[in-house]
């Protein structure tokens, strides 16, 4: 056997007085493509970042690139989080900023961003176009970065990685936010780069993976254990397990309005000449459970931003929420207090310096971070829900000190804390493992028995709550179909 590319011996990593990796050993030989799984907080991201040289740990990591290979001798890490900067190099963006139009562009276009990247890495722009096309990204080249949805930002990260084609590529949860077609396209792309000599390390708990993956491992108790392909859908032991729903959430939400929850009549949204939503007609009645589907870029986030009071163009459309026609004296806080929302963007923009406890409690006030003192009843409910989600021990930890999966659980608790009349769950289980996803969906089924209205967005057909009864499908900003899946009992 040839020399290992990466040889890790006795790697130890501590985070806040807690051992994450303990005497971890791992040998990666040139021809192997590894898939690494493990429950949230097991140290997957820490290990990946350590190999990529982004964080330091104790122990020995030996890296041997192939000097004869044509591919660049680098380890490129695609983070599970995306980041972008404005024209002045800062990233102080705020939630819903992308819907506010300002004459002065604050960010560069996708094309300029890619050209700049190509120049730095000495790559030919034409080579990128192929990947751009394969990921269905061509129409977005002239969009600015701030206009992109989370799934589109993920694609931009992946385009850069595949274009660079380094000797080793580490992808941390690359499927987050991608629609079914894009996931399949990504797998085809990854098989292709692997065939050309890029070695892959894929961190994912997903089932559909590229066929070129041939070695499998799980991180458990700080160590890496090789497993067989079949073993990896094992039962992780996490703290978020089915229990009986807290009493305060098993009561029906008090109805505060009459009429339809949502009533859109020929709703149109456009930016300059670009149409984003076209003639949307959609009525959601109280208690209905909807699935909202559509590929990346079909207009789902924009549609939901209207429902959540986050889109300025709501005011020029014929559109009612909770019985109010928009723009007739209601405030967005009147709307938000009836909604429990989770979405990739809400997570991305959420106050990273709030503690887990504050984050959950902020759900009572629809704020990002906590600015009020909740009374004793509400505080008790926060504690109860933290217990339910297995987050009690983290209640005083800052959000940005937790792994993404745990942050997500905290934000899911925030979504539910006020027992809202309308639940909007836009890819709620991003970053969770399959077991956690199942538990969460069971919880949603339980809550929805009380008459809660639901709008659910999920790119994984196999991972949906059972209570869904209607489906609306968007394509290129228009309603392609709206159908009944399940007759109401």
């Amino acid at each position: 056997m040839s020399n290992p590319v990466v040889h890790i011996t006795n790697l130890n990593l501590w985070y806040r007085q807690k051992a994450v990796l303990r005497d971890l050993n791992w040998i990666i030989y040139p021809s192997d493509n590894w898939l690494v799984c493990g429950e949230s907080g097991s140290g997957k991201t820490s290990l990946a970042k350590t190999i990529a040289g982004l964080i330091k740990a104790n122990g020995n990591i030996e890296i041997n690139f192939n000097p004869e290979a044509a591919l660049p001798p680098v380890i490129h890490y695609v983070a599970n989080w995306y980041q972008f900067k404005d024209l002045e190099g800062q990233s102080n963006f705020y939630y819903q900023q992308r819907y506010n139009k300002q004459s002065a562009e604050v960010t560069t276009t996708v094309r300029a961003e890619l050209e700049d990247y190509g120049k730095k890495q000495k790559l030919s722009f034409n080579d990128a176009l192929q990947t751009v096309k394969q990921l269905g990204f061509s129409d977005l080249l002239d969009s600015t970065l701030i206009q992109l949805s989370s799934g589109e930002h993920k694609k931009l990260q992946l385009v850069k990685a595949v274009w660079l084609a380094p000797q080793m590529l580490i992808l941390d949860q690359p499927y987050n936010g991608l629609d079914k077609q894009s996931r399949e396209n990504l797998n085809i792309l990854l098989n292709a780069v692997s065939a050309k000599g890029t070695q892959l390390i894929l961190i994912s708990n997903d089932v559909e993976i590229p066929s070129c993956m041939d070695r499998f491992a799980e991180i458990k108790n700080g160590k890496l254990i090789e497993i067989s392909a079949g073993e990896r859908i094992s039962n992780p032991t996490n703290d978020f397990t089915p229990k009986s729903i807290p009493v305060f959430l098993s009561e029906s939400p008090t109805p505060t309005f009459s009429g339809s929850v949502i009533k859109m009549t020929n709703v149109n949204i456009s930016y300059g000449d670009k149409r984003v939503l076209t003639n949307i007609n959609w009525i959601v009645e109280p208690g209905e459970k909807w699935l909202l589907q559509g590929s990346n870029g079909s207009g789902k986030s924009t549609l939901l931003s209207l429902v959540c009071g986050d889109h300025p163009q709501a005011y020029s459309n014929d559109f009612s929420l909770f019985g109010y026609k928009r723009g007739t004296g209601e405030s967005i806080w009147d709307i938000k207090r009836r909604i429990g929302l989770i979405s990739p963007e809400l997570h991305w923009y959420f106050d990273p310096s709030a503690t887990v406890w504050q984050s959950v409690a902020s759900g009572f006030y629809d704020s990002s971070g906590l600015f009020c003192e909740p009374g004793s009843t509400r505080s008790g409910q926060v504690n109860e829900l933290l217990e339910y989600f297995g987050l009690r021990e983290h209640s005083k930890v800052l959000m940005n000190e937790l792994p993404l999966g745990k942050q997500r659980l905290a934000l899911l608790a925030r979504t539910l804390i006020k027992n809202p009349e309308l639940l909007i769950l836009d890819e709620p289980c991003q970053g969770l493992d399959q077991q956690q996803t199942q538990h969460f969906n069971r919880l949603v089924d339980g809550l929805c028995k009380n008459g809660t209205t639901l709008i659910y967005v999920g790119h994984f057909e196999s991972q949906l709550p059972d209570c869904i009864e209607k489906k609306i499908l968007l394509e290129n900003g228009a309603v392609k179909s709206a159908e009944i899946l399940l007759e109401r009992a």
Partner: protein
Amino acid sequence: MSNYFNTLPLREKLNQLGVCDFMDSSEFVDGVNALKGKKLVIVGCGAQGLNQGLNLRDSGLDVSYTLRKEAIEGKRDSWKNATENSFTVGTYEELIPTADVVINLTPDKQHTAVVNAIMPLMKQGATLLYSHGFNIVEEGMQIRKDLSVIMVAPKCPGSEVRAEYVRGFGVPTLIAVHPENDPEGKGLLQAKAYCVGTGGHKAGVLKSSFVAEVKSDLMGEQTILCGLLQTGSILSFDKMVEKGIDAGYASKLVQYGVEVITEALKQGGITAMMDRLSNVAKIKAFEISEELKDIMRPLFQKHQDDIMSGEFSRIMMVDWANGDKNLLAWRAETGETAFEKTPAGNVKIGDQEYFDNYTLMVAFVRAGVELAFETMVQAGIKPESAYYESLHETPLIANTIARKKLFEMNRVISDTAEYGCYLFDQACKPLLADFMKKVDTDLVGKNFNEGKDGAVDNRALIAVNEAIRSHEVEVIGATLRKAMTAMKAIKTA
């Protein structure tokens, strides 16, 4: 028109200067009701105009924009800002007569022309809202007696006003009612409702007067906020280059240092900023800032005196009439300084290094904040106002320097602030010439603690800490900061 303040008897001058009241949140329980169903028409759609309008509309209020005919016909940026966010836009003639509240968010320099154009169109008993009192106080604009005149001034850039609102919070805001124009006594109610509409009531509202706002705002921006930051930055950079420090490093230290240093100021006042230094460095910074205060005190007093007498605005308005001759010349001069022309080097400077290697700036900031605060309070301005116009705003201005140096700072601030900043800078540099001769790289460019054993005398340290902590700006600051919770931390560049 003549200077309004100068027409007042001393009793009334003192009376209006001394208005300042940090409002309790219980004052806002009525929400936006005082403006509900009223027509709000905003004049101008730049950063403040657009973002305040977005917030007000999202709070359930009826907002539209009025622009000059040329801006509408030419589809200028202001027109695009408003229409692309689904606001109604119309000319003065179309919208002003329908307005219950007209919100003037144009630059100071245009106020006289704008107000003269809109006032005849305003309906009986309407309200005119300003976000700065210069036009009323310094230019002495007379407003029709049936109209109410109020001020609402969010103390942050427009984008922050929006960002904080959508996260469920707000930015600190100052409000006032012009005593000459409150015929129905509704001014305060409307100003409070406007604060609720922009979210400001959640972050703290200061009730001030037109006079107090103008006299303290001018003083703060000319001295500590823009003037001293400019002087300190240029002198520090030149000193480092003179002493052989790498110019790229010097440029980066100065550009970003002031932001990192004043971030500590924002979180915990002068005390927190000084506490970031080692004990030896703190004592040194204290000593030189005392010296700086003695040197600069007469200059701070001169600026305050010229502001109070109206002399400052008089000479600035002469320059306005002169096509901004001085302003443009001074702006060009600033663009030519070595600091401005040297790009920040590609070196990593850690958070703590900005303090250890830039002790001089810590001393400048302490001296400037305390002097501006003391001078304002001595002139009859209330400590709360003085705090906002000195310490509170320093980190916001420092942020503009971090973005693109002094040119950016001067571009973002008002022309009035920019004019005053140059006046200060020109007078301050010669005043500090002798002081700067004594400064070496231990204070700027290299780690002050290097080669020192770090030992200090207990009593000396206790005395220094006591002096820092017991200063009035610290006492009032602790109270006000407690009321304005949840401040976001900046990232180190």
